[in-house]
């Protein structure tokens, strides 16, 4: 055996993947060949350094707290009545993709005669069955890729859109007073144009009847997640609702199952009252997690609006089978847009989510 032949087998030998028939001659060669010995030794050094480098890799000090926060946020968001249909049925996904593509074709002017937008709503195309809640885009859905080696997360696979989906917080068509939402019934082109936002340029000019137009402008959500442990979950929840009422906050109770053990309350509170409400809620028990963040949702709003308009434009042209699903998506998007609109700091509101838990 010469070095060229040996080099082809060295790593298989090193990994114990070579049968004795080939390993014997190779061993004999390596024992007498300084070049091959050096080659192996050099590789061992490389591996040693790689492992040393690996040993030095440590996550940030608050890594576990960050994971916990993500889980908490995910659990809370999944429990929200706004939770969208999670449909992983491939047939529905494909059908929806087709619908979205048709809708985009329509929105881009193939049907309506409008002009092509510079930034088509990529969110809808990446995963048409996935409509994230406001601020949830970092919690990506289970990938639909070919590699299925790992069990995928399938919350309620194949489930129909929940009833709550059809009943958003404020029903479409009844915007709150002072809200910058315009109800339009447009048949002719260009009778109303919304303000241009980052993604709102070159909008399709013809909108379907009943399509709501939300103005594109800067929007930020200020939200606090407060996890409080108390042995009196129900009593604390009642108190929290009293505090919220005093603060003029809108409250939602989000059931998580056993109400004696845990309950989530979500408040949309006037900015001026938010700090007072937070301190009252903190006093309900032991604060085990707290995080307040401000998030710019301007772009998210624009993307959702594009998607909403595209789906709305397609609503009347699809068959009844796809239509029910499409309507659920439209209602979901409309509710999300409404929430982003009315719960922003620009609308004078903050969001406080309280997770009351019994000690484990």
């Amino acid at each position, binding site marked *: 055996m010469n070095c060229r032949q040996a080099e082809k087998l060295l790593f298989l030998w090193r990994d114990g993947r070579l049968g004795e028939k080939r390993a014997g001659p190779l061993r004999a060669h390596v024992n007498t060949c300084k070049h091959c010995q050096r080659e192996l030794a050099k590789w061992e050094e490389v591996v040693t350094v790689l492992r040393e480098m690996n040993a030095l890799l440590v996550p940030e000090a608050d890594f576990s707290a960050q994971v916990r926060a993500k889980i908490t946020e995910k659990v809370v968001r999944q429990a929200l009545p706004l939770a969208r249909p999670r449909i992983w049925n491939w047939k529905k996904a494909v059908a929806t993709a087709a619908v979205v593509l048709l809708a985009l074709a329509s929105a881009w002017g193939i049907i309506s005669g409008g002009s092509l937008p510079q930034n088509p709503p990529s969110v809808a195309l990446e995963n048409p069955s996935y409509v994230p809640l406001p601020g949830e885009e970092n919690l990506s859905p289970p990938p639909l890729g*070919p590699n299925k080696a790992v069990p995928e997360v399938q919350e309620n696979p194949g489930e129909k859109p929940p009833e709550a989906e059809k009943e958003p917080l404020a029903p479409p068509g009844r915007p709150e007073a002072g809200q910058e939402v315009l109800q339009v019934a447009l048949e002719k082109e260009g009778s109303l144009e919304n303000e241009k936002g980052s993604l709102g340029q070159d909008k399709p000019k013809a909108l379907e009847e009943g399509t709501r137009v939300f103005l594109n402008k800067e929007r930020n959500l200020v939200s606090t997640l407060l996890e409080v442990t108390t042995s009196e979950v129900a009593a604390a929840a009642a108190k929290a609702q009293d505090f919220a009422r005093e603060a003029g906050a809108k409250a939602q109770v989000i059931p998580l199952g056993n109400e004696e053990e845990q309950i989530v309350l979500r408040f949309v509170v006037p900015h001026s009252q938010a700090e007072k409400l937070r301190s009252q809620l903190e006093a309900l028990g032991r604060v085990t997690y707290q995080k307040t963040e401000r998030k710019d949702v301007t772009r998210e709003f624009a993307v959702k609006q594009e998607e909403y308009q595209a789906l709305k434009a397609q609503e009347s042209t699809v068959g009844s089978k796809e239509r029910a699903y499409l309507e659920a998506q439209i209602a979901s998007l409309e509710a999300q847009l409404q929430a982003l609109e009315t719960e922003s700091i620009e609308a004078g509101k903050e969001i406080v989510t309280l997770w009351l838990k019994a000690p484990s």
Partner: protein
Amino acid sequence: MFPLEETKTLVARSQQGDLEAFEQLVLLYQKKVYALSFNLTGNQVEAQDLAQEAFLRAFTSLKGFRNDADFGTWLHRLTVNLWINGQQRQKKQFFLLPGSFGSAEGEEFPREVAAAGGDPQEALEKEEFRIAMRQALNELPWMQKTALVLREIEGYSYEEIARMLGCSVGTVKSRLNRGRRTLKEKLTFFFNGSPALEGKEF
């Protein structure tokens, strides 16, 4: 490596939705998952995101985990699966731009000069070699890099790697072979010897 019984108990409690228990699991396994994530992504920000996403996915899929399997390996499978799906989705590789190492934006890589102790010159050379190694690893095509990391750093068998990557053992062999060859080419200065490095023990 990790206390088996403790892990099993924590997994069982986590499967019942006990977040405190799961946080303990995160603390036990965070380094293992983060290190793999860093080796795959090549930078701290993406490594942090990937590792967190892996734990999040672990929590939500924990009910499907058989508690007689190795929890660490399962976490690694989740991590690799997320990484591969991310790569396939983006259809691009995470190459770091040449010259971006140790830049002012910085801290792409952990600097360990101070921790190395001893001769500062030697420590610096060791650090430079690590940076060159990291750069070489990051520049590998992502499938070769994944196979190489799982084999040489994590020590998984060809069969385990094939299961994680959803490919045949033959494909693993081929990716490892190509990965090693490419890495060697990128570290020519080391394999062919250089006056500065000759005789140094890394």
